[in-house]
């Protein structure tokens, strides 16, 4: 025999654990200490049936905790005090004596704790924890129902199997339906309480200005910045454009709004649609494959130099679709040459002399670029991220002394020389490369792929030049590894995280409407949402199939005679309103009570066969079926 109370306690503590687990790292010290202590103490108290904390003490403690965290609440600090309060309340409840309603309170607090965690982190850990919480809380609630009916109830061990069979139907069914409800529950375009949501946890190392020489060492992390759902591309095409820096102030390149009259037209090239899932905050700049002419969504503002920025701050993570033109020419319209030839007054004479020596005024822009590239090669520059030039004369030191630096040194010095030579030039900041995940067909762009390159105006076309590739070690430097894929287990974890973001985190009203229109299933490639629904649909089909098999099995195992009489009784109930017919009432009596000739004939034929212990003849069976059809039509 096993006591229901034991099972109930087990599932209650499991639900608490799973409810608080994703939240634990975000709790303050008192809650972090109190919760595990309360779990252990509660288990011991439940076992001994002696409790440390009485009802009055528990109420006073709860009021104190409520007052403490209530005073710390304000509009910008809502979630943290609330979740700490919830967890402490849960801890208090665990160490007090538990009536059935207290168990119910514990389950509700555990569910609210998990809901609170969703306002602090969007980690994929949420999903397995949610599944475990649903299983433990639903089973706990079922055993609580048994416990409420008889607190001393014990069941034989053998009866636990059928009980668990029927009980597990609840969490399994709930989780299957969860996928359906998730797709159809109403969503709003601008949620009122958006401020409560967690933003991206990390800020991208991407910068809005370029200032070589500030750091003696550039040690970028491999933190994820964004993922791109895209077809396979060559490394030479993987330039992710973020910002264009068009003015030099002091030693620093910055962005100013491009001249108003300026325009840009893309000519030729292959259109390529991509969906981008940002992970880190990039101060409004939306990264797209270079060059991209269009980014979906009314909340995007695009400028003439192909920089795309969010109009309004959107705290929750969104995905966006871009249409790039691979290999297209960027034809400048009404470009302001003077704007792109501005130079800082503090520029050194050595750089001026170098530029003057490289070209003659009669050279074309293409020739000037070629000569400058040749100069870079002659200088035997090394791509490096340590032992870098200092802040005093960074570019001179880079070009003539240390001759080592990373992309910012290469691009700044190259663009500056071009401007000195009279070629309009600007810097483009973004990322270069991408780790391809073939499992799911996307690129991951990480922090260490941040890159700066140059765009020069040649014959009214903005031409991309990547001076970093002029380094003597360009083939062996980190630039080469930017297209490589990580280990398989990292790829697998990353793919899981990607699907989590694609299917769950970025599902919004737009995708819902897309689904409603049926467009979700016809988009190019495999739509994230459609794949989710296909999965849910497939599961429902499997469940429906199983039900059909069970129905067929039941139908085939029930004799024809029994099935006929069952249908007859059902029709009697529907047609003549004879409900709750006593099981001991004879078929003939029942037919007589209806007063219907067809019923009487049915009863006569059926009884004649059954009471003589013989099966129905085919002709009798056919006649009974005709009578049933007739009754069905009435």
């Amino acid at each position, binding site marked *: 025999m096993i006591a229901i109370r034991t099972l109930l306690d087990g599932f209650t503590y499991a639900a608490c654990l799973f409810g608080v687990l994703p939240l634990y790292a975000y709790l303050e010290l008192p809650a972090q200490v109190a919760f595990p202590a309360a779990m252990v103490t509660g288990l011991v108290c439940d076992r001994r049936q002696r409790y440390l904390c009485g009802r009055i003490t528990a109420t006073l403690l709860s009021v104190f905790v409520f007052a403490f965290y209530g005073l710390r609440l304000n509009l910008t600090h809502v979630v943290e005090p609330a979740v700490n309060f919830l967890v402490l309340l849960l801890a208090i409840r665990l160490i007090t004596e538990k009536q059935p309603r207290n168990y119910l309170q514990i389950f509700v607090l555990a569910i609210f704790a998990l809901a609170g965690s*969703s306002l602090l982190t969007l980690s994929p850990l*949420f999903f397995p924890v949610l599944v475990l919480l649903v299983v433990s809380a639903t089973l706990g609630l079922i055993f609580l129902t048994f416990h409420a009916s008889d607190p001393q109830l014990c069941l034989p061990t053998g009866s636990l199997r059928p009980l668990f069979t*029927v009980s597990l139907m609840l969490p399994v069914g709930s989780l299957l339906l969860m996928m359906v409800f998730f797709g159809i529950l109403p969503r709003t375009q601008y949620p009122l309480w958006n401020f409560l949501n967690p933003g991206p946890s990390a800020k991208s190392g991407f910068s809005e200005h370029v200032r070589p020489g500030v750091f003696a060492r550039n040690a970028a992390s491999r933190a994820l910045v964004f993922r791109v759902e895209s077809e396979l591309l060559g490394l030479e095409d993987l330039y992710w454009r973020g910002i264009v820096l068009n003015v030099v102030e002091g030693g620093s390149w910055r962005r100013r709004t491009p001249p108003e009259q300026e325009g840009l037209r893309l000519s030729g090239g292959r259109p390529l649609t991509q969906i981008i899932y940002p992970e880190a905050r990039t101060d409004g700049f939306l990264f797209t494959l270079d060059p991209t002419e269009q980014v979906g969504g009314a909340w995007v503002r695009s400028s003439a130099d192909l920089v795309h920025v969010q109009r309004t701050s959107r705290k929750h993570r969104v995905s966006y679709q871009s249409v790039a033109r691979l290999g297209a020419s960027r034809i400048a319209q009404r470009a302001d040459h003077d704007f792109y030839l501005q130079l800082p007054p503090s520029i050194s004479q050595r750089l001026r002399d170098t530029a003057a020596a490289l070209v003659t005024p009669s050279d074309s822009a293409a020739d000037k670029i070629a000569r400058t590239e040749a100069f870079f090669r002659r200088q035997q520059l090394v791509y490096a991220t340590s032992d870098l030039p200092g802040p005093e004369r960074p570019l001179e030191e880079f070009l003539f002394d240390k001759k080592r630096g990373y992309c910012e040194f290469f691009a700044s010095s190259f663009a500056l020389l071009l401007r000195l030579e009279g070629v309009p030039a600007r810097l483009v900041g973004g990322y270069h490369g991408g780790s391809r995940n073939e499992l799911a067909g996307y690129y991951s762009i990480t922090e260490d792929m941040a890159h700066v390159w140059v765009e020069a105006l040649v014959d009214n076309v903005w031409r991309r030049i990547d001076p970093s590739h002029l380094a003597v070690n360009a083939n062996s430097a980190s630039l080469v590894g930017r297209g490589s894929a990580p280990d398989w287990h990292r790829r697998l974890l990353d793919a899981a995280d990607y699907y989590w973001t694609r299917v769950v985190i970025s599902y919004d009203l737009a995708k819902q409407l897309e689904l409603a229109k049926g467009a979700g299933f016809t988009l190019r490639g495999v739509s994230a949402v459609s794949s989710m629904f296909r999965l849910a649909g497939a599961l429902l089909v499997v469940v429906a199939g199983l039900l059909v098999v069970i129905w067929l099995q039941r139908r085939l195992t029930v004799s024809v005679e029994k099935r006929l009489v069952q249908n007859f009784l059902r029709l009697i109930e529907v047609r003549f309103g004879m409900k709750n017919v006593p*099981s001991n009432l004879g078929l003939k009596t029942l037919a007589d009570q209806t007063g219907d000739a067809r019923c009487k004939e049915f009863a006569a034929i059926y009884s004649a066969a059954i009471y003589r212990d013989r099966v129905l003849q085919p002709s009798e069976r056919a006649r009974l079926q005709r009578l049933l059809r007739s009754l069905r039509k009435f």
Partner: protein
Amino acid sequence: MLLGFGAVNTGNNLMYLLVSALLGFMAVSGWLGRNNLARLQFDVHLPEEIYDGVETLIMVRLYNRQRWLPACLLALQLQGGRVRCPLLVGGGNVQLAVAVTFRGRGVRKLGELRINSTFPINFFVRSLAFHLDRGILVFPRPLPIGLQAAAAAGITLGDLARDKGYEGDLTRINDYSGGEPLKLIHWKASARHDRLKVKELSSLVAPPLVIDPLKLPGRNLEERLSAACWLIKTLMRSGRSVGLQLGSGRIAANSGRPHQLRLLGALARYDRDTHSA
């Protein structure tokens, strides 16, 4: 509700997941609750003797016609009596004894048999109600009368210890007929035989006689009929032949169980505007 409100207003998809799971939970728990009572059947077994105001055990055998799924947390109610069955496995059956007290002699309806369940979640109670139109005959409540009163009515009681009674030694174990006091139920023997058994104790005996209830002491007709009922039961248990004089009608003295039931039935129906059960 609160979580749903929070999900819509934050647009947080994780909260949507949680709310979706809770909605799924509500839907599935509703279906499970409905399915729990969907294929229950029962048989009611009434004892032969049911007396007015005397607690009687009515046996209800409950069948779960579902092949795989058990029926859980069943509470059966009949005529104010209540009995619980925590778990009835799929395809199984269980016999439940409901203690019921009927009020008033004569033909009565068994009334409503209700099966309740709070399964799976203790938020709602689901019920199945069956109206049992089956008539039962309730005998008058046995009312012991003193020896002097019995003698005044022409009845003498014997003193042979070998006959059945309530106070003597245990003579044998017999099937429960419904008329015996609950204290005489032999629980150990009942558990062994899967049916209720009662202890038969030795008592006194007396010679055959015909009872005229209207001559028996009592403040009204019901008390006289109750006294007659007690006399019939007591005398016939001791093996005496007993007859009955009811107004102009007369039932000749005889012995045996069918005869006893006939006499008690006549007492139950006397002066009642009812039809035969």
